[in-house]
């Protein structure tokens, strides 16, 4: 997912540096957003609408890079994966998966619950509760992530990697629940 060939612009070595933020999992979201805007203000292609094609091209690349950096850092899962990479752990998110049986069993149960929501008495209430449950689980993982990144020993990095795999499951589940909610709202409201 990462577009690496950005050597031509001598931008900062990593996304955190780009936004002048400390490398830390706990991030100051308002500072990030504020600096993102400042950067786009100086690099966005609209600032170069009248400039040479060369500058326009470069502005496009710069702006694309800043968007990617911003999106990565503002997403808790993306940020975890990115920080793992900074620590030399390259996670192959498409092909590795958790082997934690208890977790996988729980996922099966959650999916089963999701598929039955449509038949409940108050499907909209049920889907809202379901989304809260999944969000709660995700938030707990995010806060554990922050603790582990504070002292990133090899063991902790392994734990983070495992948590990233699990978060991907929950993220997917959350998306499916959201699209079910959208469907239900369209049918019922």
């Amino acid at each position, binding site marked *: *997912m*990462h*577009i690496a060939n950005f050597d*031509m*612009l*001598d*931008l900062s*070595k*990593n996304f*955190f*540096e*780009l*936004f*002048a*933020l*400390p*490398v*830390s999992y706990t991030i100051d979201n308002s500072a990030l957003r504020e*600096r993102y*805007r*400042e*950067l*786009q*203000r*100086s*690099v*966005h*292609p*609209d*600032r*170069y*609408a*009248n*400039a*040479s*094609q*060369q*500058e326009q091209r*470069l*502005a*496009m690349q*710069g*702006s*694309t890079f800043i*968007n*990617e950096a*911003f*999106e990565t850092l503002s997403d808790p899962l993306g940020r975890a994966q990115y*920080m793992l990479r*900074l*620590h030399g752990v390259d996670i192959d998110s498409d092909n590795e998966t958790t082997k934690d049986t208890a977790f996988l069993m729980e996922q099966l149960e959650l999916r089963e619950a999701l598929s039955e929501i449509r038949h409940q008495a108050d499907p909209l209430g049920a889907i809202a509760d379901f989304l809260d449950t999944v969000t709660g689980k995700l938030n707990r993982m995010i806060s554990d992530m922050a603790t582990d990144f504070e002292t*990133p020993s090899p063991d902790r990095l392994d734990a983070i990697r495992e948590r990233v795999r699990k978060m991907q499951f929950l993220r997917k589940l959350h998306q499916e629940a*959201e699209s079910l*909610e*959208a469907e239900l*709202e*369209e049918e019922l*409201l």
Partner: protein
Amino acid sequence: MALLQIAEPGQAAAPHEHKLAAGIDLGTTNSLVASVRSGTPETLPDEKGEHILPSVVAYTESGVLVGSEALANAHGDALNTISSVKRLMGRGVEDLQLLGDELPYDFAQTDSRVPRIRTRAGDVSPVEVSAEILKLLGKRAESALGGELTGVVVTVPAYFDDAQRQATKDAATLAGLRVFRLLNEPTAAAIAYGLDKGADGIHAIYDLGGGTFDISILRLNRGVFEVMSTGGDSALGGDDFDRAIAEWVMQQAGIERPDSTVQTALMRAARRAKETLTTQQVTEIELADPAWKGTLDLDTFNGLIDGLVRKTISACRRALRDAGITADEVEDVVMVGGSTRVPRVRERVAEFFGREPLVDIDPDRVVAIGAAIQADILAGNKPDEEMLLLDVNPLSLGIETMGGLVEKIIPRNTTIPVARAQEFTTFKDGQTAMAIHVVQGERELVDDCRSLARFELRGIPPMVAGAARIRVTYRIDADGLLEVEAEEQTQGVRASIEVKPSYGLSDNEIADMLRSSVEHAHDDMEARKLREQQVEGERVIEALVAALDADGEELLKPEERSRIDAELASFRNLVAGTDANAIEQGIKTLEKACDFYVERRMNSNIRRAMAGHSVNEFEQEAE
């Protein structure tokens, strides 16, 4: 030695020169052009004082008519009078069925994927029809402003897909206009309102035009507009309200199979009824042939359109969800498009968002006004302007994978410009080619999505299945246009192809269209090319000189500076000459020579933007 000036990044224009620029709202039913004159954005009228140009083009015995003259021609010559052509922009022949038999035109049978409408002036494509409208508006702006336009901003519905955007841009090019930027209509409306009021916060723009519906959720923060989400329906609008009334009349009057003349009369009566019902409780409808008279009251009308209005509210709900907010976080709801004059629409929108929508700026003009403001900024007339738009792609872009499934590469509502890559591998041993199918849409099956482009990557070195690594990269530029590239990686063999997704117009067809356009005979084409290259060359010189004045001393060593000066001097000679190809080549040479300098400038801009921020606690191991 020149004094060191501090210039705003990207501002290449000489300080005093005001560049002429215009914003064009190319609507389904009506179009407008606006410009910023002495600091005030305003729509520009024709010589009769009319601001609104009906988006109608008529191919008559005596030539092409555009606007109300064309509309007058609709009577009795419906087949040669094209209206609502925006609905056909970027559509393929196979999409026509989707639009139903609502369009009373004769479509030519051709091998082309683009629908062509049969007229007495020959078969015309939707791009050509739109170009007629744009050409007229461009001329109107040039005569009102008294000079040649540097460039224009043309608005499109946020929900327009890639093919529809590309078609719009092509239409502008065909009309001889330089497009600074395609701008989403709701964003244009927000600019018109936002700058007037300087209101930071989250805004919803509800835009119901003649043929399209858009909802956009925007966050405005100190001049930066961020589009949080957008949604809508590119085939739903006020025309559908008219049609609902027309169908009701047909039912009441017992009309079964109206011919195109009766259809036109019906639609006209329906539109009038709709307009009357924006201020009255009841309206009379009268038809001449077949003779019929009846009354339609507001309640009945509301009943006819409730289903359509409900569809728009569902889209609002989706947009809020995508933005991750609830209705009460929205500060303002801005109403855009003539159809928002319908009282039922206002009621439902007010009910859903829990506040009265803003209607202060004429909903018909607000988009053109916003586009004019943006065009003025992009032309470089407002170097101190802080405004910036961060837009998103409206629909997910994906690739076909095994079994006819779609793998999303760039999900909808991602901020643009953006680039995303995904790796794929081969399916069979010794496979040397891979078919790449680019699709757009939210559904999981390829068949349910819109096909944008197909191409093949060849020359993959033969390996066992699953060993090759093919990286497919999707890039969307700031206009929302897509480019796809595929590249084999494992053995360092690089085969890459770039595609511009087509809506079916081949390069030859575009060339034909250009050739057939009467205004550009062969000699004209040559002269035109030279003029274009000269203008481009002058632009390059101007940009470089402004840059050198601003930071040449700071960023360049003396020997680098004299090298660039020498290149610049020889390029000036080329531009003064008459060889278009030499100028074109010269631009490339000069740009190459300045590569390093442009990069330094960009970096220095970034450094300046981040000056004052320091990294407090930088972790060593993270490097």
